[in-house]
């Protein structure tokens, strides 16, 4: 039986994390969001629902995911011991499926026959198409036309799974525009459609709900670290795009003040170049996609285009709970460039035989910097949020190799 979802005082009733979060949508979505909030509050306390979720996470996703002590890498770095939470070993290859399994079960309970999703790199789209196939639901995935081009493999996977993939041609034709288009679909088809948002953003209750489904990562990790090492880690490290894998790891540790938490944003070509996806590091608060949070915007409040080698981090906003954790100082937000992430990708692949996703490589890159500054009795736990198979073509192209 899964642990009961932890009581936590944030967000408040209307979804606020301090000044962040909330519900900023057009009127037509207010009623469906109320309906969703009611279902979320009801089922996340319902033993039958939790038992079914637990069953699916164990037998379909393959949970619990292991913790792995990267002894060789730690030795070579000559500092803290590096441990990985192996979300890359989940069914479909990333942490995204923890959330889609949960939301799809909720959709079923709510009597919805159709699910929609937005996707950037395609991992959330694949994870949604996967659960939709299993539950026999119609599935439509919105994906920016630029991302459809650069993530052709995942587009094909989604189609194999029976999903309809719609290339979004508006705006910058990336993840943010896919989210806009999914919202437009939802507002048009609210009666029979459930919108499965893939990250801890969007209007309330999404940031809290996605966090609660992803917090299985941190609950397991906390227990596993106590079993393996007899104590809690000294630091947690996770990459942050929208921030779902990071919140999933961080949340069960928020009250453990002695555990430092580092969220790693994508610095792209470097924060100083402006070509990055690091709103917490270099943005400012605003309102987008239904919540108030840190954004990348120009001086007029228009959202600007982001850059990262990793499509999954290529997003101009970030979950509102991260904005709050930053402001209150509980978590630190740092960044890694494309070049640093690529270097980390190779180092982990060659030293431990684990090929990480480019998203997760940003977390690895920061861990490579952090570990040598700490003594060898310290423990750094890194969330390896996904595996790198989907990125092989990107890496090859970047290095001038034709496959």
């Amino acid at each position, binding site marked *: 039986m899964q642990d009961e979802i932890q009581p936590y005082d944030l967000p408040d009733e209307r979804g606020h994390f301090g000044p962040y979060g909330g519900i900023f*949508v057009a009127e037509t979505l207010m009623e469906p969001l109320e309906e969703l909030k009611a279902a979320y509050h009801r089922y996340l306390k319902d033993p039958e629902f939790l038992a079914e979720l637990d069953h699916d996470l164990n037998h379909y996703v393959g949970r619990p995911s292991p913790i792995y002590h990267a002894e060789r890498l730690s030795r070579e770095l000559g500092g803290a011991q590096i441990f990985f939470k192996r979300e890359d070993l989940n069914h479909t290859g990333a942490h995204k499926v923890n959330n889609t399994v949960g939301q799809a079960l909720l959709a079923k309970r709510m009597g919805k026959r159709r699910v929609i999703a937005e996707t950037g790199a395609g991992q959330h789209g694949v994870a949604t198409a996967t659960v939709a196939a299993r539950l026999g639901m119609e599935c439509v995935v919105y994906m920016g036309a630029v991302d459809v081009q650069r993530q052709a493999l995942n587009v094909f996977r989604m189609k194999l799974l029976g999903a309809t993939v719609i290339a979004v041609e508006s705006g910058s034709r990336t993840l943010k525009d896919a989210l806009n288009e999914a919202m437009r679909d939802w507002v048009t088809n609210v009666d029979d459609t459930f919108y499965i948002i893939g990250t801890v953003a969007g209007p309330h209750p999404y940031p809290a709900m996605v966090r609660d489904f992803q917090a299985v990562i941190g609950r397991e990790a906390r227990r596993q670290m106590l079993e393996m090492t007899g104590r809690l880690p000294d630091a947690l490290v996770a990459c942050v795009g929208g921030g779902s894998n990071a919140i999933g790891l961080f949340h069960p540790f928020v009250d453990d003040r002695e555990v430092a938490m580092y969220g790693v944003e994508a610095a792209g070509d470097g924060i100083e170049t402006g070509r990055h996806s690091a709103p917490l590091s270099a943005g400012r608060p605003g309102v987008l996609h239904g919540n108030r949070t840190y954004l990348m915007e120009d001086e007029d409040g228009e959202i600007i285009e982001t850059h990262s080698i990793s499509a999954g981090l290529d997003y101009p906003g970030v979950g509102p709970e991260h904005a709050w954790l930053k402001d209150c100082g509980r978590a630190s937000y740092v960044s890694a460039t494309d070049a640093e992430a690529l270097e980390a990708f190779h180092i982990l692949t060659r030293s431990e035989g684990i090929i990480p996703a480019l998203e997760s490589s940003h977390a690895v890159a920061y861990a490579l910097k952090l570990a040598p500054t700490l003594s060898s009795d310290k423990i750094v736990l890194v969330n390896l949020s996904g595996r790198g198979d989907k990125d092989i073509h990107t890496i090859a192209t970047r290095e001038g190799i034709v496959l």
Partner: protein
Amino acid sequence: MSRLTSTFQVLRHANRKALIPFITAGDPEPGFTVPVMHAMVEAGADVIELGVPFSDPMADGPVIQKASERALVHHMSLGKTLDLVAEFRRADRTTPIVLMGYLNPVECMGYQRFVDRAKDAGVDGVLTVDMPPEEAGEFVPMLHRAGLDPIFLLAPNSSDARVQRMAALGRGYLYYVSLKGVTGASHLDLAEVESRIAHIRSLTDLPIGVGFGVKNAETAAAIGRFADAVVVGSALVEKIAAAQDRPEQARKDIVDLLAVMRRALDT
């Protein structure tokens, strides 16, 4: 009394319905906007809704999305939209102007600075699509104090409690979204809209405008039989899209459509 309130009073006494065209500021380029606003007034517009371009217009259909994109190519912004309103006001002191847009550019400018600038420019109403009353606790009182009218959207699925809340905070008129969907959609059910409007009238005395999906004079006239105002947006913006490089033609097409709608509303 605000310009919007007095406009609706005059119309009510004359037993006429308001025709409210929507265009996006700076579409297809900034120089097009003010002349077409004057031309729309001459063609029978009672109020003008001026869209503020935004990079992520979540509640808009493809026609108005493209209008935002065309305007943003020319670096149109909230600040420049206010400049256009001020320019319009130099020649027209009576036609109310409602800004319609998304919250982020307003947050970016700062609520108080926006309110002050909008007041100075001669704006009358402010419709912020993605700011429901729950999140408007700071902004709406600022608008009230400045004499600017907050305009709220009502949806087919708004509860009575929500309608009452927005009726209490709203000024000028309430904007009933005729369907579940985005702007410019095409599945309008007139009988359904009529019965909803009748119900909403039992909850508020504010004038009620209807928009989203009003494409032609026939629909405008049908809505005019039970609503106080008809809002037409995408159908006009399509004229701009079709004649982007021929501003005279676009203006003429807009004026012609509005004139036909005006006649249909008045007969």
